[in-house]
């Protein structure tokens, strides 16, 4: 009992000191529980949508989508509907077709431009309404269902966004050119951001090129009939490759994709949450280590009057447990709050059915377990240390000096070496891509922990080196300037958001860029308003903090740089700061480590991103000769006549269509490889095959094949060998290996044939992309523009020139980097609190000294300056550690990822520079409040604090 009392008392005394620790746990646990809550809620939401859509369906006929090699996809003839309808056990059967791909049928707006959703695809279906009281399908909200070849329905969201009204004649862009339809009705379907275009079945079949075919038949059982009886009855009627499934199977089939995406999303969020939590381990450790060292005398006294080491240990662990529990509960609250806010935001966007926040028992249990475990584990070492404090420590004046534990060094070395060994072993490449990446991941975690244990050894010397006046001063100055500018921007932005949310500004029109429509912003309501106000106030507060801390950092930074040359007093502040951070290397190290992890990951991601960018642009410039690329916006196959029309354009030199499929080598149980097919013009500049050996002889005739280098090595193939390829039509061709392609950027592990041979065996495979070269003696832009104009005739076809492609890839990579780094931001926020925490505790620990310094003439400003320099040094140390490890892991990662994806290492120096500057910002900001508190201390009270 006494132990518990002690633990409680410890918390009460240290509440201020534990506050930031609780916050760190709260953030980590909040993110963990938030990930679960969001994925559970989204899962439930989509399950709801799907089961609503399938509510009136007892069974469904569909093509089997998992095909074995050579199996042809089944076709549902539309005569099947009548056959099923005729069954006694069936009350109703309705056929349904879907247009392949997205954006194939787009209404034209007033400017004759295709009108698309900004946040989703436009899908075309045959109409499937609530016929005969059958639930599910589209809800007719206005007008009537489409009937006849000139009639169409749109969903209400689309009609509202595009300004279409019932009775309008709308021109559509279709794969077959433009066509007019009359808008006869509007429907609703709970899929926000997605536009629907609905025709009657017959029209849809014609438009979608599916005459006489159906994609699905929805079946309603006759009253009193079991669905299983319906399945039994329908089964015998089905052609090959077609199946019938019941409602439950239909639901899970329909939600499978959603659920997969949701679970991926959930796992990604969870991974980042765990990273944040991992970072908070170091902060918790640091806090308890400091608390124990501050209480050495008290603990010594307790030991002297008879407390056992075990009792002391338990009291610290119980204290940690209580703190962990507090943080976990608050974290679950935070998780619910964030998830609720996100969902409220979805709802206020409209279109989503009402969502409920799903807080499962699992979420609560995992969150609490994770939070508690993290806290207890981190407090373990300090607790054991506390248990070993001897009674004499109570009498000693100067707190015992932290001896460099030999155990720590040994453990640190072993763990680091293990981590690096895992990375090295991974790089040896014997474990496949996934295995390698897993080894790298485990290696990284071990290395982080090992370096954290060891960094105490060199934190002192490192800070003594890093804490030089000039670098620190320059960093401080830059940070000051950035904070000043950022502060002004944030305050302005925050205030604008608040004014906007208050509705005082009414509507704001943002002129559209590049001829896009103007965007009109109206004052938000409901959750949007709350969020805007929250964000606005958050920005404002942050801005004020920036504005308070920036100017002083700037002034002191400038002074320090100046004093470095003239020998003024600011150098002394840096000295004092340096000594302070070098004095408790373990604390400096733990703080720096927390920052190190976040920044190592940011660096890693940036190195990978930059390397990916470099590799892609190398591929584009070296391996790809094409100047123009044609593909489907959503990966759809291309119209058959596009290549012909393209080659008809003036200035187009060479055009090649690309198709792909599987081939089998070695009979029914043989291995499956990819086969890539081009127009095998041997001199093609479209793709650089990089022939290592052989030639193109015979490829164009369909008697020979090119084999990629890795595949050739794999199968021991050489030029002149013969190989039997079995195509998907189950026909086998005996082909000669004409050449071996060394450039595997696109063609890794595959056979390359000519289109002629390919089409013969895969008549149904569409064109995936088209490459074209532009003649040297014509104007590039003119030809490129002409090609793009050609694509306007086809919905969903895009033409990109080399530059566009590069730009598109870069935008994609940048967006990905922003996303990942944004998620890693949480780990950085946690680490930031760690720095604040350390500074707060370090100030508390040095209260007496601070009083003394003030007594002998240190001004408040100078005191704040020393504390700021200290924070900057600690951050800089952590940042450099992080960057170093990040580059190391980045290089390892590039090596581990197949060359066909990333082939060369490229270090993003600019990003690294920005990260270093961020270290300055973090230091300045983290120091501000603790420094201000320290400066307010009365010197006499401070001196008396011993």
């Amino acid at each position, binding site marked *: 009992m006494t132990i518990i009392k002690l633990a409680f008392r410890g918390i009460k005394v240290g509440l201020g000191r534990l506050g930031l620790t609780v916050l760190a746990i709260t953030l980590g646990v909040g993110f963990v529980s938030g990930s679960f809550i969001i994925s559970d809620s989204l899962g439930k939401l989509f399950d709801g949508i799907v089961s609503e859509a399938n509510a009136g369906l007892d069974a469904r006929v569909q093509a089997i989508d998992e095909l074995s090699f050579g199996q042809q996809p089944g076709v549902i003839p539309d005569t099947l509907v009548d056959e099923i309808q005729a069954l006694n056990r069936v009350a109703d059967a309705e056929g349904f077709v879907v247009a392949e791909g997205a954006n194939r049928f787009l209404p034209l707006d007033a400017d004759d431009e295709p009108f698309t959703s900004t946040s989703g695809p436009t899908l075309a279906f045959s109409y499937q309404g609530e016929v005969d009281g059958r639930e599910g399908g589209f809800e007719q909200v206005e007008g009537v269902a489409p009937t006849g070849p000139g009639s169409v329905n749109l969903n209400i969201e689309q009609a509202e966004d595009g300004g279409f009204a019932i009775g309008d004649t709308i021109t559509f862009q279709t794969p077959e050119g433009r066509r007019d339809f009359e808008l006869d009705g509007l429907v609703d379907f709970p899929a926000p951001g997605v536009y629907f275009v609905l025709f009657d079945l017959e029209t849809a079949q014609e438009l979608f090129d599916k005459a006489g075919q159906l994609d699905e038949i929805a079946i309603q059982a006759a009253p009193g009939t079991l669905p299983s009886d319906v399945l039994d009855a329908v089964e015998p009627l089905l052609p090959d490759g077609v199946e019938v499934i019941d409602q439950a199977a239909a639901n899970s089939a329909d939600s499978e994709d959603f659920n997969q995406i949701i679970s991926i999303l959930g796992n990604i969020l969870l991974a980042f949450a765990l990273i944040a939590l991992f970072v908070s381990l170091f902060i918790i450790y640091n806090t308890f280590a400091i608390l124990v060292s501050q209480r050495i005398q008290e603990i010594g006294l307790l030991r002297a009057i008879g407390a056992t080491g075990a009792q002391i240990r338990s009291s610290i662990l119980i204290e940690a447990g209580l703190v962990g529990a507090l943080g976990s509960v608050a974290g679950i609250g935070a998780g619910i709050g964030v998830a609720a806010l996100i969902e409220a935001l979805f709802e206020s966007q409209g279109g989503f059915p009402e969502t409920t926040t799903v807080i499962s028992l699992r979420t609560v249990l995992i969150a609490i377990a994770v939070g508690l475990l993290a806290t207890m584990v981190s407090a373990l070492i300090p607790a054991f240390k506390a248990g070993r404090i001897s009674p004499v420590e109570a009498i000693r004046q100067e707190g015992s000096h932290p001896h460099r534990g030999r155990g720590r060094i040994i453990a640190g070395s072993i763990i680091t070496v293990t981590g690096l060994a895992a990375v090295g072993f991974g790089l040896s490449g014997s474990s496949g891509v996934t295995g390698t990446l897993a080894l790298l991941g485990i290696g990284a975690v071990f290395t982080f922990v090992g370096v954290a244990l060891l960094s105490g050894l060199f934190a002192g010397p490192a800070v003594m080196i890093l804490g030089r006046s000039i670098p620190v001063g320059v960093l401080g100055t830059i940070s000051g300037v950035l904070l000043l500018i950022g502060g002004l921007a944030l305050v302005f932005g925050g205030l604008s958001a608040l004014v906007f949310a208050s509705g005082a500004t009414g509507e704001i029109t943002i002129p559209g860029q590049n001829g896009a429509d103007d965007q009109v912003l109206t004052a938000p309501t409901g959750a949007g308003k709350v969020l805007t106000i929250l964000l606005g106030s958050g920005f404002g507060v942050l801005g004020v903090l920036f504005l308070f801390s920036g100017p002083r950092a700037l002034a002191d930074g400038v002074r320090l740089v100046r004093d470095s040359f003239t*020998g003024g007093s600011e150098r*002394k502040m840096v000295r004092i700061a340096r*000594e302070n951070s070098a*004095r408790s290397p373990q604390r400096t190290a733990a703080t720096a480590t927390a920052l190190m992890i976040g920044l190592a990951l940011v660096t890693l991601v940036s190195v990978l991103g930059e390397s990916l960018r470099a590799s892609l642009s190398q591929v584009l410039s070296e391996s790809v000769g094409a100047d123009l690329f044609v593909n489907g916006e959503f990966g759809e196959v291309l119209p058959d006549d596009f290549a012909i029309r393209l080659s008809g354009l003036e200035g187009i030199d060479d055009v090649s269509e690309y198709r792909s499929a599987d081939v089998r080598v070695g009979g029914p149980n043989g291995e499956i490889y990819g086969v890539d097919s081009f127009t095998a013009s041997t001199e093609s500049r479209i793709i650089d095959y990089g022939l290592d050996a052989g030639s193109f002889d015979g490829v164009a005739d369909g008697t020979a094949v090119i084999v990629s280098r890795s595949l050739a090595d794999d199968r021991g193939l050489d030029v002149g060998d013969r190989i039997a390829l079995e195509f998907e039509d189950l026909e086998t061709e005996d082909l000669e290996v004409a050449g071996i392609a060394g450039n595997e950027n696109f063609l890794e592990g595959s056979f390359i044939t000519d289109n002629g041979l390919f089409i013969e065996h895969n008549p149904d495979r569409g064109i995936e992309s088209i490459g074209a070269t532009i003649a040297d003696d014509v104007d590039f832009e003119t030809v490129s523009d002409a090609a793009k104009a050609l694509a306007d005739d086809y919905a969903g076809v895009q033409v990109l020139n080399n530059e566009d492609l590069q730009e598109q890839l870069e935008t994609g990579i940048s967006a990905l980097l922003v996303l990942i780094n944004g998620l890693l931001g949480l780990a950085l926020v946690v680490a930031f609190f760690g720095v604040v925490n350390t500074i707060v505790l370090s100030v508390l620990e040095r209260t*007496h000294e601070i009083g*003394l310094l*003030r007594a002998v*003439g240190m001004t408040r400003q100078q005191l704040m300056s020393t504390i700021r320099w200290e924070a900057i040094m600690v951050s800089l140390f952590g940042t450099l550690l992080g960057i170093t490890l990040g580059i190391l892991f980045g290089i390892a990662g590039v090596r581990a990822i197949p060359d066909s994806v990333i082939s060369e290492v490229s270090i993003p120096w600019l990003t690294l520079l920005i990260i270093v500057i961020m270290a300055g910002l973090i230091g300045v900001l983290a120091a501000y409040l603790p420094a201000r508190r320290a400066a307010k201390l009365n010197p006499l009270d401070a001196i008396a604090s011993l």
Partner: protein
Amino acid sequence: MTDAAPTPPGSPDPSPGWEALDDMTTTAPPVPPTPGSDLSDTIGLAAYCRNASKIYGQGDTEVRALDDVTVGFETGRFTSIMGPSGSGKSTLMQCMAGLDTFTLGQTYVGSIELSSLKDKELTLLRRSKIGFVFQAFNLIPTMSAEENITLPLDLAGATADKQWMDQVVATVGLADRLHHRPNELSGGQQQRVAVARALASRPDIIFGDEPTGNVDSKAGTEILQFMRRAVDEFHQTIVMVTHDPVSASYSDRVLFLADGRIVDEIRNPTEDGVFDKMRHLGD
């Protein structure tokens, strides 16, 4: 550029000379001894306070630590302050050193009136015109003895006068210990470093609150001898709180404090004289 060599703004007002003191003595009953009344005109006051009171707390918990004290400390003299525990000695030191402020009354260090100064001005004043030696833990543990000594100068961005430094260091007898950290020095050595630091900026006045209170008598003697030399050889003004008549006998003058008032004083004290007076006061 505020921490360049400071010239603290002060009131132009009174010259801390005799006129001021005369003025004070007339308005400062009921304290019998008129400080410095028998000193020659040539001696000014390094610091003084007039009708100074310090009141802690309020209402029921009110403590009047100093009660209408008027006292001056002559330039180039060594003054001791004695009195029972709780009599207000530390309070007087701290308020006169600009570490705290009187509730009522005025304080001057040199020609500068302290009560009107803001924190920053007080800090700059402490840095350049005042030295302070606490009973213990005077040094910054991360700095060497030398760095501790030059700390006030470093904070001001001033460079130490090499000759003066050498002289101080030689006097304090720590030349071979300069690069040691405080935890490598004995308590007595640490206090000597603290006195050297107080001397380093050649302040107008040095205050010591029981500077020998925490060290053995041999080390105490060394410190006292050192302070005595600082007064004799460098014309330094020192004011020291002590409990020990032997220590007090090193000074030129002893002031006795009781219940927040100055109740007596001895000039050129001897050990026995101080003893007598203490016994007498105890009655």
